[in-house]
């Protein structure tokens, strides 16, 4: 089963906030994460697909069929909410069995299937506990099991991990990925945590101001961002406003940068992107693309350090595993990517 939206637009009444002209297709078994700053429209997108909001334009397709006007309960979607929204007066097992009861599954059968689902999320021992007696991570698992037990057409996850602490978050995101792959279900995962998105998604859609800027596999999104905004949002980046001088030279606030300016003409305004891990310590043989400066910040991050070097006209961020405190850094020409200026 698949989920798709076509030319989907929605503006919150009396505002220009919302989403505009969204095209997105999630194939069966695929996990697409949507990331973006708060207010970018990612939650609105989820509400539109879930049917809690009706789009002003465009269509929602579930398993190839137009579901735009369908009420939420007819859409057969498994939704996990940020605050889980478990039913507090029902035990873990009863919570999971409830959607089956709605669908007229017999008592013994729904008990069996709910227990099976609880076992899959590793909580069979807690079957008779009320949500209040479960930890945050356990509640999350129950919510996930409840959303998947009735074989939904797709899974919608609305920032499901934001209420958990950091270690549990990493554990749970792998758990979500495992369950999702086991059942081969199309999944939309809304998050503001880019690491979470990059680590478990097949594709990541970056949203800003109601639009999808780019939707691509995590590696592609990182290595070939489509725009300056995507580059800035995904991962760490050195981004400089630059002007193309000729086919191999840029003028930037920190000085002249040599690189291949494919696809741009002299005089074009561009954004020059250099990922911090590509910046090297020392100077180049001919002295080009080399910068000297003063160490501004030194952050120890375990296997590497993230350094900011203050140079004339700006800052160069770099990541290195070495212990050296650099005075000079060097940007290999092939590490520079040119993006259209916004």
């Amino acid at each position, binding site marked *: 089963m698949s989920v798709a939206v076509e030319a989907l637009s929605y503006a919150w009444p009396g505002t220009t906030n919302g989403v505009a002209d969204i095209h997105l297709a999630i194939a069966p078994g695929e996990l697409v994460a949507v990331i973006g700053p708060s207010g970018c429209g990612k939650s609105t997108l989820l509400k539109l697909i879930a049917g809690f909001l009706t789009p002003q334009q465009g269509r929602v397709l579930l398993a190839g069929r137009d579901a735009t006007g369908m009420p939420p309960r007819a859409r*057969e979607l498994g939704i996990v909410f940020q605050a889980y*929204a478990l039913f507090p007066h029902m035990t873990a097992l009863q919570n999971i069995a409830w*959607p089956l009861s709605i669908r007229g599954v017999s008592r013994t059968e729904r008990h069996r299937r709910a227990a099976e689902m609880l076992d899959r999320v590793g909580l069979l021992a807690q079957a008779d506990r009320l*949500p209040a007696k479960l930890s945050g991570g356990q509640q999350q698992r129950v919510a996930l099991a409840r959303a998947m037990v*009735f074989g939904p057409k797709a899974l919608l996850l609305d920032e499901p991990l934001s209420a958990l602490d950091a270690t549990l978050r990493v554990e749970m995101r792998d758990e979500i990925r495992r369950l999702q792959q086991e059942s081969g279900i199309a999944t939309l995962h809304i998050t503001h945590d880019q690491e979470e998105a990059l680590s478990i998604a097949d594709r990541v859609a970056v949203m800003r101001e109601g639009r999808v800027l780019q939707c691509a596999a995590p590696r592609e999104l990182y290595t070939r961002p489509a725009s300056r905004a995507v580059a800035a949002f995904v991962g760490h980046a050195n981004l400089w406003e630059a002007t193309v001088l000729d086919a191999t030279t840029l003028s930037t606030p920190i000085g002249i940068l040599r690189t291949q300016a494919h696809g741009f003409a002299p005089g074009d305004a561009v954004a020059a992107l250099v990922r911090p891990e590509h910046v090297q310590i020392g100077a180049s043989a001919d002295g080009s693309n080399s910068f000297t400066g003063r160490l501004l910040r030194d952050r120890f991050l375990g296997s590497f350090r993230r350094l900011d070097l203050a140079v004339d006209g700006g800052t160069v961020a770099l990541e290195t595993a070495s212990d050296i405190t650099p005075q000079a850094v060097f940007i290999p020409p092939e590490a520079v990517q040119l993006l259209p200026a916004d």
Partner: protein
Amino acid sequence: MAFFITALYLGYLLAPMLLLLVGSVGATWSNTLLPTDGLTARWFLQVWHDRSFRLAFITSLQVAGATVVLCAILGAPLAYAVASAGHRGVRLAARITYLLPVAAPPIVLAFGLMLVFSSDALPFLGATWVLIGGHVVLCLPYLLHTLVADMRHLDLPAQELAAEALGGGFWRRFFDIVLPALRHSLLSGSVMVAALSIGEFQLSNLIAGFLNRTYPVVLLQAFYGATGFACAATVVLLVLALIAAITGALAARGASGTKGLAG
């Protein structure tokens, strides 16, 4: 100091009740600080054998029972409608409307009922069901207020959204999610309604018929007779009210206990 004030207040609160208890078992009580001539069960027996008191007691129980049931049946869906109204203006208007009977003195309602039901077209003044209707109007706001406050506290909209996404239609959501979530406040609110209905005097005194006077209405007349009799009759009402209050407190404690765990 705080202890002293509390003790003083409790004394002020409890002294009349204690005097009632003493008076109800005292043989003679006239022009002395306390009753004289020893203890007696005479007054309680007199109340028990008095036909008008027994009738009134039964009427009060009937009216209170019917009022509780009607309030619960009306209150849960009404509170749900008020709490889930989309527009803030609608919610405000609903609150003002349902709190009106609290603001307006019962005597206003009684006069209204008297005007309507003493006409030739609707000659029903004095009927038990008019009494019940009046009590429902007076007591419902208190139940609604308890329920609406609880609903906001429970974050029901999020649960309902989840239930709807899981495929639950309106009635399934109402009976499986909303009602169980409200069970404690429904219980404590109902006990409050029972207590209010049992003790209601102003309205009942004006619209009750001769054969279906409620207990507090008959009680007033007891004070024209022997002091001991009046005390015993009042103690009966006091016990009823106490039972209602204790049940309500226990129900409320149960509710807050659950919430404490959830939070």
